[in-house]
């Protein structure tokens, strides 16, 4: 008996061809790539130094010298958005990492074990979901103090049940399949099966959920920074830029418009990317949130 590996039947070339035919994917991918490139670029070059305050140049309207204008400390908004991208991506990425790293093994374990372990996991999930995420994130940062690290933890914690749930649901659907039964018959253990067979098969689901959570993470980070509980100055962050902007909307609206657009575009790009991936790899799957 040959073991059929349950990978998508299509070849890589086929997937690529589909990807290039998928509008969501293309736009999303392009935007995400752009944001990532800008963030990386900011490590080696920004138009201006964002740690230097030039009070004399404060709240200047967009001009050839400062494309997006300057903020209340005379810093270049474009440069700050570039560096802020770094912060947003880092926070959201690590938060997704925490969620996947803890949530996926939990979900896979619950699905493999079933009964008591499964029930326990679902109850803990219920518990976490009962706390409005933002409220809890505010509480966590209020306890441990504001800062990027605590924001990551606060957002990460709420990614755990999300991934646990997705992993569990995906795994549950795969366990009864024939090739798993075959693997069990071959004497493979629960952990081995989970790693070798279940995980590759739910990878698509996790990838799609990952992009969604990444986008939500960026929104959450912006929200926390906006109420002053995220990254602290002098580290620029998009949410904080909006906080600084809101008292100056009348005289310096560019301070609010550009960082806000940076958030919208990044989140939009990630969501489109997620949609696209879901369409390409599994046309039947629909995204639920």
């Amino acid at each position, binding site marked *: 008996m040959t073991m059929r590996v349950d990978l998508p039947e299509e070849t890589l070339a086929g997937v690529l061809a589909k990807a290039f035919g998928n509008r969501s994917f293309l736009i999303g991918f392009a935007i995400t790539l752009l944001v990532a490139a800008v963030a990386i670029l900011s490590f080696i070059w920004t138009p201006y130094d964002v740690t230097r305050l030039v009070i004399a140049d404060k709240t200047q309207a967009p001009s050839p010298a400062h494309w997006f204008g300057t903020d209340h400390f005379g810093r270049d908004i474009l440069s700050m958005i570039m560096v802020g991208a770094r912060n947003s991506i880092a926070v959201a990425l690590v938060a997704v990492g925490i969620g996947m790293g803890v949530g996926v093994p939990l979900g896979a374990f619950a699905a493999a074990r079933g009964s008591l372990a499964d029930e326990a996991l679902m109850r803990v999930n219920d518990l976490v979901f009962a706390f409005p995420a933002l409220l809890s994130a505010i509480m966590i940062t209020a306890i441990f103090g504001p800062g990027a690290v605590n924001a990551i933890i606060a957002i990460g914690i709420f990614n755990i049940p999300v991934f646990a749930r997705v992993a569990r649901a995906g795994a549950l659907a795969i366990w009864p399949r024939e090739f798993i039964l075959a693997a069990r018959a071959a004497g493979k253990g629960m952990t081995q099966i989970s790693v070798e067979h279940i995980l590759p098969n739910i990878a698509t689901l996790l990838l799609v959920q990952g992009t969604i959570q990444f986008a939500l993470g960026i929104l959450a980070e912006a929200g926390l920074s906006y109420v002053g509980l995220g990254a602290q100055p*002098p580290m620029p962050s998009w949410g904080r830029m909006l906080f600084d902007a809101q*008292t100056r909307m009348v005289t310096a609206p560019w301070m609010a418009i550009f960082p806000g657009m940076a958030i919208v575009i990044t989140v939009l790009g990630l969501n489109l990317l997620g949609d696209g991936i879901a369409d390409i790899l599994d046309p039947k799957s629909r995204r639920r949130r």
Partner: protein
Amino acid sequence: MKLWKTILAAAVLTFAAATSAFAARTDLVIGIPLEPPHLDPTAGAAAAIDEVLYANVFEGLTRIGPNGEVLPDLAESWAISDDGKTYSFKLHTGVKFHDGSGFSADDVKFSLDRARADNSVNAQKGLFAQIDRIDVVDPVTVKITLKNSQGSFLYNMGWGDAVIVSPKSADTNKEKPIGTGPFKFQNWAKGSSITLVKSDNYWGAPVFLDKVEFRIVPDAAAAVPALLSGDIQAFPFFDPDSVSQVKGDPRFHVVIGSTEGETILAINNKKPPFDKLQVRQAISFALDRKAIIDGASAGLGVPIGSHMSPANKDYVDLTGLYPHNIDKAKELLKEAGLEKGFKATLKLPPPSYARLGGEIIASELREIGIDLEIVPVEWAQWLDQVFTKKDYDLTIVSHTEPNDLGIYSRKDYYFNYDNPAFDTIIAKLNLTSDETKRKELLGEAQKILADDAVVGFLYELPKVGVWDAKLQGLWENAPIQANDLTKVKWTE
């Protein structure tokens, strides 16, 4: 877009014109930044209590006027004995508390005795320290005898902490304040607003407003749109940083006045390396006061070189002592053996002068190698960590009490500053009443603080008031933190 706006605006205007009343308005919504913890000015130091109640609900024997002068209030006149120790106050007749009970000399004795009692919770017991005894001569005459003559006694009796309360309501004033003023308390929606209404049986000149709502607006971000949309018609203590948003708008009257607030970069003088004079002086040299004032207070505010308001008659200009000089600062750090720089924290309370000033100062100190971690804290944490436990390196705060040079000689104060020479001067000062001698001593005291670079002296906090241009009678300066509404009226 433009056309749409015009059409919409026209529609709105027509609607507004049709509904607006023709008589002058008699209601007012005032924005205040902080909510009072309770409503008894005789039992708490929070400025927010006075901002709502002083002169409006509660009155004292005397009161402080818009420019810091002492005016008669419940006492229509007084006589002072030749030795300056005995004050006879003649009280107004026909005064009633808001609960209908009458006011007499007994209430004065009750209030002041209560304030100076051993178990008193009055936040400014020092105001009453010189009172020896209080005698009720007749229902409209009170005689107060002092232990020593005190030039500031009449001024002291004008503080919010010295207002007259009724024995009947003294214990419930925190929730339901009952005073003798032209406005009586109506409602307190916690966290939102406090409403006062005109008192019908007021003894003095009638006020123009029927109803005043103090709306609590902690964020400057919310203050600007509330003002622009007309929801709130006056912010007597407006965030200076936001003033550019309304300046030049003919609908508003923007008033830049003075306060008694010395804004300082406070330094923990006992904590290494800040215990080294060179380090503190290096910090003073690294500060660019103009940039700080421009960036944190919209360019308003006068630089200071020591702990004294430039408006004070005893002020000595010491701003030239530490001009902005990065090289000098670096040199001093090198002398202190810290040429490589060091790390420290900067704890910032909520006001914008602190949060914005903090970012600027952090950037300025980075230039001489001091790497500051900014830690934003709420007032409760600031009081706990910085003020009480002295667990801090640097912080920014504005000391708004008038004539508060003495805090630098307090042994347990959060600066952790200890200089016997300075203490001697303050001790002498407390026993000196001669004006020229006082001026000399105060000058010396300011000089010592500046020489020691005890803290980074930044600037005198401006008082920025913004209100509807049709509103008249609000205070332009802030000799004390108060919103006296007795003369306020709409001019249309």
